[in-house]
């Protein structure tokens, strides 16, 4: 009966009969109570289906996509931060090591310098010692030679005096007197 209503009202509405009050056949369609059960039933079916799909498929899926993306971005940012910290630590370690190496190099250089200086000093002292000894030797030899020469000078002078005396005077002078005289004259 209701479907007859629908059909008849559709037919009549096409002919322009629209100003009939609610509840009567061919009522203003939005207020036509005869069609309400059909509207409600099919609305329940279609909207119910949509709600079910939302609940089971769409909202979990979209929510999952957005959450994955948020997690991924947060994870990437965290990873970047971790890598940055690692880099900072590596740079710090490098700089510490560099400073250490520099300090060690300085130490080695200083040690080496000191050692060379000490070596040179020792060699120099040794050489100086050798020279001093040689000078002393030479000096003593010079002294000896000088003494020997001087003693020979006395003999030569005595010989010369004896010869001079023998030439100018017919006296034979005593050798020891001549020697004493020469020594006295030399002093």
């Amino acid at each position, binding site marked *: 009966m209701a479907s007859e209503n629908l059909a008849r009202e559709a037919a009549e509405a096409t*002919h322009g009969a629209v100003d009939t009050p609610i509840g009567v056949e061919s009522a203003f369609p939005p207020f036509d109570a005869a*069609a309400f059960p059909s509207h409600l039933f099919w609305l329940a079916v*279609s909207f119910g*289906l949509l709600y079910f*799909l939302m609940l089971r498929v*769409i909202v979990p899926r979209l929510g999952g996509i957005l959450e994955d993306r948020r997690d991924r971005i947060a994870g990437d940012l965290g990873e970047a931060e971790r890598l940055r910290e690692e880099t900072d630590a590596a740079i710090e370690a490098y700089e510490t090591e560099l400073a250490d190496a520099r300090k060690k190099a300085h130490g080695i250089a200083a040690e080496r310098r000191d050692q060379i200086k000490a070596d040179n000093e020792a060699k120099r002292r040794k050489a100086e010692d050798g020279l001093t000894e040689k000078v002393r030797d030479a000096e003593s030899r010079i002294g000896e030679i000088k003494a020997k020469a001087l003693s020979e000078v006395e003999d030569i002078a005595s010989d010369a005096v004896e010869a001079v005396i023998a030439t100018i005077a017919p006296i034979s002078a005593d050798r020891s007197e001549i020697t004493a005289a020469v020594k006295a004259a030399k002093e």
Partner: protein
Amino acid sequence: MAAEGALDPIHQFEVHPIVDLHVGGMDLSFTNVSLYMVATTAVVALFLILSTGGRGLVPSRWQSMAEMSYEFSASMLRSSAGAEGMRFFPLVFSLFMFILVANMIGMFPYFYTVTSQLIVTFAFSMLVILTVVIAGIRQHGMRFFKLFVPDGVPMAILPLVSAIEVISFISRPVSLSVRLFANMLAGHITLKVFAAFIAALSALGVVGILGAILPLIMTIAITALEFLVAGLQAYVFAVLTCLYLNDALHPSH
């Protein structure tokens, strides 16, 4: 008589059975309205399911649109009802998408506007209000009725204030459903009336065709306005749903 039917602005809201279906004396025929309801569900569901099929970390254009609609509804609900309101998210998202798509489908010429049926919008608003009442009572028990008893009101005027609160609560489903229904119905009737002017005037010869330019401009302008209204009313319905759900979660003022 066909021309007269085409010029009749109410003609577009008529209900025709497509498949007769009677269950227990009730007429549950599959009508053109039912067809557009099912089409709305199909469009929403296919759009949201197919576009997110790739689950791309970097979204495609379609997936980006689905994500935008999701985040738009989610931020709307979160800002009105807080984080605990998110358990109603499937309902709010379904309502928003269904009403939006139903309104937009209605903008196609010769397509039926499901939301211009009062019973449809009333069913939606009753769904919202019943969700509010049931969720509110389940969560807060009798304290839910503190909604009608604002804090800090003197005893002398408390009955009056409570009566006003009760009336405003009862009028919610009415205003919620009538707002959407009336906007869609009136918009489509206005559109049809101006469009009919064009047809009627241009039948009068050269002068009539020149005179038809004015209603043509109006029709174009109202079409643009109707697109705005279609989106806006879906948004308004969803926002009010969120605000009412907030009452269920936090009944004390």
